């Protein structure tokens, strides 16, 4: 019965190959989706390469930051089609946990997470400390001044993070960093136009204050 019915099948099916898109609009949509896809994929490979130590940290940091920025731009571009990146990744069989974590959740390269053991001279150290202090104060002030938009706070926090990381003498485990890292993650997941509400800004201020105090104590030692 199957053999006989096969002949009937061919007559009713279309015989042409299918094209993915048939006009420019579709083509553009698919191009943008492809960019997003490729960004995630590259990030994944980059992370893996970094883990395998195939990539020096500096290069990694640069590339990763670039990718993160590109990711963010493409997200705004594809707001309508891809409301949920996780869903997108499921649709296209994109099994990139590390990339998802890096791009969506953290939003900063892992070098910023964990400070690299860079040897630094005393002057550099002093410079770093001063810089960190200055950043602390600037950030706290801007929060107090109610400049609580994400796109305002985020760069400050990431700079602060960076400078703390540069303070390699602090050691890898500096509690102050944890809190700031968390906040960066939170901000990363928020949109640029979002603002911190009162509770959050107070909390952030409090956390920053704590970190600063800890930092200060650490300096004294």
């Amino acid at each position, binding site marked *: 019965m199957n053999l006989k019915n096969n002949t009937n099948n061919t007559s*009713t*099916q279309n015989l042409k190959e*299918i094209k993915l898109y048939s006009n420019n609009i579709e083509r553009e949509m698919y191009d943008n989706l492809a960019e997003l896809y*490729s960004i995630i994929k*590259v990030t994944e490979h980059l992370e893996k390469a970094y883990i395998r130590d195939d990539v020096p940290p500096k290069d990694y940091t640069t590339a990763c930051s670039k990718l993160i920025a590109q990711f963010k731009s493409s997200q705004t571009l594809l707001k309508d089609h891809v409301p949920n990146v996780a869903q997108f990744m499921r649709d296209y*069989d994109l099994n990139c946990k590390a990339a998802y974590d890096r791009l969506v959740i953290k939003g900063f390269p892992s070098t910023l997470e964990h400070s690299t053991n860079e040897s630094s001279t005393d002057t550099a150290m002093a410079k770093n400390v001063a810089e960190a202090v200055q950043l602390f104060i600037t950030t706290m002030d801007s929060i107090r001044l109610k400049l609580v938009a994400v796109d305002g706070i985020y760069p400050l926090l990431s700079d602060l993070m960076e400078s703390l990381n540069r303070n390699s003498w602090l050691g890898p485990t500096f509690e102050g960093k944890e809190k700031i890292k968390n906040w960066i993650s939170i901000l990363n997941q928020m949109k640029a136009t979002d603002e911190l509400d009162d509770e959050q800004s107070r909390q952030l201020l409090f956390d920053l204050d704590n970190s600063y105090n800890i930092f200060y104590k650490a300096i004294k030692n």
Partner: protein
Amino acid sequence: MYGYHGYQQQMPQPTHSVVDGKMHNLNTYLNYIRAYRDPLRVAKDLKETFHLFPNLSPYYENIPSRNINLINIKGTIPICFKNINYYLPIIVWVPLNYPLEYPTIFLDPTPEMRIVESHQHANLQGLVYHPYISSWNSASTLGQCLKLLCDAFSFKPPLETKSPNSSPSTTSSQYNQPPPPYGSSPSGSPVNSNGNNNTGSIPPPPYGSSPGASSNYVPPPSYDSSIQKKNAALAAAASKGLGDPSIAIPPPIPQKPQPPPTKSLPQIPPQPVIDKKKELIDECTIKLQEILSQYYDTTVKEIKDFQVHNRSLEELSKKQQLEKGELQEQLALYNSQIDQLNENITQLEKWIKENDKPETDIDIDAMLGPKDPLSKQLLKLVSDDSTIEDLLYYLDKALHSNRISLDEYLKNVRSLSRDQFMIKATVKKVQYFIRQNQQQFLQQQQQQQQSSPQSNNNQQVPKSLPQFQSPPPQPPPSSSPQNGHYQSQLSQLYYKQ
């Protein structure tokens, strides 16, 4: 002439016991016969008659021609002609419809007697006529009738002796000897009335009474014995030489009653026996009829039951026929399916034989391939996807072993990923269309089975052409993890024809 009153004086009243005896008999007969319209009236009239005429007694006889029993009165009635008392033997038949119907009165002459010709009141057969009888109505009574007859016959007796000496005209030649007393002693023959009739001192012949004194009447025990006694008395009288032997003919008691053998009381039982027999016969008939009707009822019921049973059996057989037909149809269907499968098997075997070459000679790509362009496209896309995946892996390796720089690596990975995405998107689309086609095909099959109109098929065909209807659609959903995803693609490959 002596009228009715004279007779009354001559004859003493019969005693009540005698009459009662007769009445008892009469009532017995009436109970046996049961056909009398008015038995009470009959009894009343006859009682009066017995009182008036003590020589009359009741009997009953069967009338063969009419197949009934009738009561009759036999005996003598007294007449007085030329101062001589005579007794006329008569029979009175009491009809069933008495008193609506008149009683039939016959003269019953003895062999020595004969009926006077051209008598005004009697014919030669002995039938008695009288105006009273002619004008009989329900108020008439037998007693009155007999009284009138006595008067009439006293005026002109209807019977005469047949003796050669006497002439028919001489009325004196008639029997004048009063009947001897019935059952009385021969010595007691006081009834010589030759010279004693007028004064009324002649004692009437008492039935069976002792001479002279008692006037008891005893019913004659039997006709025969009374006749014997009478003959004896006659002989005694003759020996006394009282009368002319020719004259001394006692009033004959009819020895031959007109109907067949006389019946007296002791002879009554045969009638009841016959009646009983008849009754038994009737009872038997009734019982038989009952049994017959019962049998009829049960048989009818049985017949009905059998009919119902028959009908149900017929229905069952019809049902079974239908089922048999259905089963045969199914059998034929399955046989045809078996044949078809056998055909397919032979086809496949043939094909296998044709293509049964050693492994190295077989070109798999020539034997096996996608059956339509969509499947072909799908196959190519899937293979490209997997290729890119492999490429990326090897690029990682190359980077690791420092064969390429990071930039190159990143650039290549980037472009390859982009291509991979395109491929994946196309794969999804192709899959979607293949699924659509399959669903259309299934729908068509179902419609063919339901014998749908052709218009539906026509509408279906244009749908099979793939079109993305609106710009940026949601890409169709994918399904399983990567490996399973491709397995489902491969499963759509069929044999090449």
